[in-house]
């Protein structure tokens, strides 16, 4: 579940400077806080998306390759293939 924005913001090391054309420029406190707020919004949105959709990417990365799945079906049948796929689906359940 996504952390609160307060928790996320507190987790960052506050920015102190930026670099423009090779020159390091210190940030004002207002600039630093604006960047922290943007980082917080980005990370919160990522965590919300991860909660809703992360299982899709984790499943996709862990399923056997398509050739291996076809080979599994050919040699072992549909039920065996479904059992193999179910292991990953159960490992990363849909929320």
């Amino acid at each position, binding site marked *: 579940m996504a952390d609160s924005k307060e928790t996320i913001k507190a987790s960052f090391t506050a*920015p102190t400077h930026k670099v423009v054309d090779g020159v390091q420029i210190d940030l004002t406190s207002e600039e630093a806080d604006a960047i922290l707020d943007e980082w917080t919004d980005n*990370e919160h949105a990522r965590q919300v998306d991860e909660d809703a959709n992360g299982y899709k990417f984790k499943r*996709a990365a862990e399923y056997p390759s398509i050739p291996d799945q076809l080979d599994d079906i050919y040699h072992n049948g549909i039920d065996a293939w479904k059992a193999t796929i179910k292991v990953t689906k159960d490992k990363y359940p849909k929320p």
Partner: protein
Amino acid sequence: MSSEIKVDTISEKTSANGVVIDGVTVKDGAIASSFISGLSSAGLTKLADTDFSGASDVTFDSVFSSTYRNYRITIYTENANNNTEFNFRFRDGGGDISASNYNVAAMYGLSSSATPFANKVTYGQGVTAGAIASGMGQNTPYNFSVDVWDANIAHETSSFAIGSNANGHTFLASNSYNAATQLTGIKFFQSAGNITGSIQIYGYDT
């Protein structure tokens, strides 16, 4: 009727003049560049080179111009936070361009996965920043090579990034900036956290 001369060595008679063969000058082990079509505008010319440590963002102003049509950007970066994107925004005379004109399709391939390119992790049309990589690990070295085409020409600007990290994962990202803007600069930043590394920008023509 054809004829042929076979010798072991042809050397210049007059020092510093080289040897001329049907109008092409060979001098000191090389062909004079003026005799190779397009060579004068070929190759990469370094325009900017910046190291940075713990920076919130890195900006290059006035790096895109009419001098070069296309640009190659090499990036080494490590980011302070986990699960982040490496983003960019183009710049013009008004500063960073954060209008909803970026179209992005970015994906990564995991060296540990049997289906390494199943992950299209960042994509969208009309978003407010370009993306070079996503799902990036904390304090992990990443290297990217980015080509930016037609940056300073008043029509759409497209780019393509390819990269790798310390774990052998692959990163691919296609971006377009979908507006007729003569871009002059670019800013790189992480979606969250400070960045450390170096960036070089080269100009080239095709």
